[in-house]
């Protein structure tokens, strides 16, 4: 729709949103102004808490319990030539409800929890259609099926009657998009729509949004913290920091001639990951610490009351690898590739049917991690520790930081009382937290700080191997870099070996010495991080690498190049 392109459809001026917490007032965003134009994508970047999501919600006037203090949000009806100030409307009134879903639609980060678990996909899309279009149920259902077909969901006729939990993550996000676009809105707000997805799925979703934008000519407000994604999809970029817009410009200008120091910081953090130099290979000539050979694990078929179904899932298929002392081994792959299962096998959580995984412990004994007996005396648990993905749910909210970090020490009977406190204090300062924080509970910490607590807990027993399962996936760019640096320091200082399980191949080049790429339970390729990233041999690896967005709008891989202005 070339005629509809590049017209201002939404204009925000001087927007400020406040949270009232008791007597205190927190300014969530202050004096934010921007335009959204048809056919163009405006990216909002910044760390969590910078006000990106609040801005997006303000555009729909759903900010409760916060309030829009001042500013205007003008929505232009391009056909009728009318204007509507959204900021001035009653937040639950008929006028704003006629806008939501019909003229401005929204998709969110968590495709699972953003859809009602107890309604079918179809019911949820049909509801949106019938709210805004004068059609009967049958016609609405037909349109819902069309919408699902438009987002390339296979077999939309039957998919429409399925529940969200029967969809995969990428499918759910497609269904969300179908729902958002069912009424052909002028503005699509996408709030971190790909953050929870694998790189390959992310690439598909980004392409899909672009394709639909070309088709319907809507303006897209795209919120993300990933500079690589920004470089791929943005026409215009707005950088937010602590509730304020610190930079606003066209994508090439923002990336290649950033004005604000905060923008430069964001770009450097992402480039740091991208352009890390090759580093000396660690300890390859020594005897491997863990040596896994031909490990296969078949999850038995689920037993239901109808009897057993299928032949089970082959989670690990003939997996072999070595972990050398002092080495960081990355294990990458999409979700479902078996990488987390592999980590759990090494921790004795599952016993594979075939194969061995020899671990030479501190006393020089060889223990087979595939056998339950190796874990009996708890020695292995002292030497191999884990760090988990979600820093929120991997710390017990009812325990103080002292109790959390001290627990492995107490369980191992290594320290108690004053001695314990001293050791916890040391561990806290080691991971960059103040020992004075010992008495606090996890909720008093930010995501990055919580992950530091998780790391302190992992190194409390002076382990030799740390398995980090997606340890940085839930963190923002700059915080992610800090945590990776902390792990690198600890590796050198404590002579750790790290198995780094990740779906984000972008951090692997920066962080890992060697990488094993997994697909459907198999290791398809192993090599140094640079070799895997720069010269992948396997088709699957190539596909994975190609899907990683690069933080440079002039080197786009997924989208058409930036148009010359």
């Amino acid at each position, binding site marked *: 729709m070339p005629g509809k392109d590049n017209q201002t459809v939404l204009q925000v001026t001087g927007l400020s949103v406040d949270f009232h917490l008791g007597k205190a007032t927190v300014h969530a965003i202050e004096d934010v102004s921007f335009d959204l134009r048809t056919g163009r994508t405006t990216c909002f970047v910044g760390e969590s808490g910078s006000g990106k999501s609040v801005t997006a*919600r303000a555009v*729909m006037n*759903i900010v409760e319990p916060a309030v829009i203090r001042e500013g205007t949000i003008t929505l232009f009806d391009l056909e009728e030539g009318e204007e509507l100030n959204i900021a001035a409307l009653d937040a*639950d009134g008929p006028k704003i*409800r*006629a*806008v*939501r*879903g*019909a003229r401005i*639609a*929204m998709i*969110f*980060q*968590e495709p699972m*929890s*953003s*859809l*009602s*678990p*107890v*309604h*079918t996909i179809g019911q*949820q899309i049909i*509801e*949106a259609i019938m*709210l*805004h279009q004068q059609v009967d149920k049958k016609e609405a259902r037909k349109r819902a099926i069309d919408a699902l077909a438009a987002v390339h969901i296979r077999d939309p006729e039957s998919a429409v009657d399925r*529940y969200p*939990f*029967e969809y995969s993550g990428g499918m759910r996000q497609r269904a*969300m998009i179908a*729902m958002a676009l069912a009424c052909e809105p002028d503005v699509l707000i996408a709030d971190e729509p790909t953050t929870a997805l694998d790189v390959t799925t992310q690439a598909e979703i980004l392409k899909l949004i672009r394709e639909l934008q070309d088709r319907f000519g809507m303006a897209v407000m795209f919120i993300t913290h990933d500079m690589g994604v920004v470089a791929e999809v943005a026409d215009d970029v707005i950088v937010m920091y602590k509730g304020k817009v610190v930079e606003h410009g066209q994508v090439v200008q923002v990336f290649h001639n950033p004005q604000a120091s905060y923008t430069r910081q964001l770009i450097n953090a992402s480039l740091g990951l991208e352009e890390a130099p090759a580093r000396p290979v660690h300890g390859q000539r020594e005897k491997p610490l863990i040596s896994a050979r031909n490990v296969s694990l078949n999850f038995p078929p*689920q*037993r*239901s*009351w*109808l009897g057993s*179904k299928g032949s089970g899932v082959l989670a690990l298929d003939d997996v072999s690898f070595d972990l050398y002392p002092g080495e960081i081994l990355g294990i990458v792959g999409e979700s479902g590739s078996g990488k987390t299962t592999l980590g759990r096998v090494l921790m004795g959580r599952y016993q594979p049917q075939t194969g061995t995984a020899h671990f030479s412990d501190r006393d020089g004994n060889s223990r087979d991690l595939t056998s339950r007996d190796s874990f009996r005396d708890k020695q292995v648990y002292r030497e191999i520790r884990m760090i988990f993905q979600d820093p929120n749910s991997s710390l017990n909210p009812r325990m103080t930081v002292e109790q959390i970090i001290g627990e492995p020490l107490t369980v191992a009977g290594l320290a108690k009382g004053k001695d314990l406190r001293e050791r916890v204090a040391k561990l806290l300062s080691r991971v960059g937290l103040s020992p004075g924080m010992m008495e606090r509970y996890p909720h008093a910490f930010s995501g990055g700080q919580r992950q530091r607590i998780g790391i302190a807990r992992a190194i409390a027993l002076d382990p030799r191997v740390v398995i980090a399962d997606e340890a940085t996936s839930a963190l923002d760019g700059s915080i992610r870099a800090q945590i990776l640096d902390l792990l690198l320091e600890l590796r050198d200082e404590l002579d750790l070996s790290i198995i780094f399980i990740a779906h984000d191949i972008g951090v692997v080049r920066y962080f890992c010495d060697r990488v094993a790429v997994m697909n459907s339970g198999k290791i398809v390729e192993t090599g140094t991080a640079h070799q895997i990233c720069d010269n992948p041999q396997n088709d699957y690896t190539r596909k994975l690498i190609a899907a990683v967005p690069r933080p440079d709008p002039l080197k786009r891989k997924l989208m058409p190049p930036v148009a010359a202005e």
Partner: protein
Amino acid sequence: MTAYILRRLVAIVLTLLALSVVVFVVIQLPPGDFVTSYIARISGSGESIDQATIDALRAQYRLDDPVIVQYWAWLKGMLVGDFGFSFEMKRPVSEIFASRIGNSLAVEMLAVIVMWSVAIPIGIYSAVYQYSIGDYFATIIGFLGLALPNFLFALVLMYISYVWFGVTITGLYSPEYMNAHWSLAKFLDFCSHVWAPVLVISTAGSAQLIRVLRANLLDELNKPYVLTARAKGLKKSKVILRYPARVAMNPLISVVGWVLPTVISSSFVTAIVLNLPTLSPILLRALLSQDMYLAGALILFMGFLTMMGTLISDILLAWVDPRIRLGMAGAN
């Protein structure tokens, strides 16, 4: 689904068998039997009873047979619908059941309906307007309802209605309707009595349900799908009823499971204080007087109701929540 239900039913039968053994053994555990406690009561009131009568009684109730023989006779009887004979009330157990189970069911079902219809709107209000004056009010009343023992509430209610209104609220029927056939007049009389036990029983129950629903709904209200529904353009009140409230309803449905056995057990004290012609006071009396067939049948019946209740709530949950339904079929 049918296979699932069948399997559960088989499990219920097996559990009941096991339960019958336990029940029988437990009832036999206290020293003595019905006749000894009968003698104790007779001599307690100053009369005496001769040995011949005692022997006749023992023979009549077959109390001197080995336990296994007694159990087997009891079980065999039950299989053909004969639940034994109540020594105390001198009537077959099944007859006692028949005369009282209707009352029990009526009182408990009414109480459950009241519980739900009070708890659902208040619970939703409390969650949506968390920390509002209305929420605090509901919370205070709720905790009072929870904290106040049922029997005390019943006594206070009796006192107030007698002193202030001159009405006795014990029983379920006025004396003149006690043995009358059902008629409009009897029904109205029933209504004028039944509100008291229903009020007493449902107060504590709804207080509990309000807390459960409020807590669940508070969790659900912050889920992203609520925002999705609002972003569609739905009205806020509609969003809440259609999405989070529906998901938060699960614990209320599981309540059905424990409501059924309460037909006998929960309103124990209330029923005794208010002198209700329901099953609960009978159970207490039967246990005190070691009236073993009556007590055994009642406890077994309670076990049966518990298991049926659980089954019904499981089926209802599966019907309401697709995650459970499809999970049951082994679909993931």
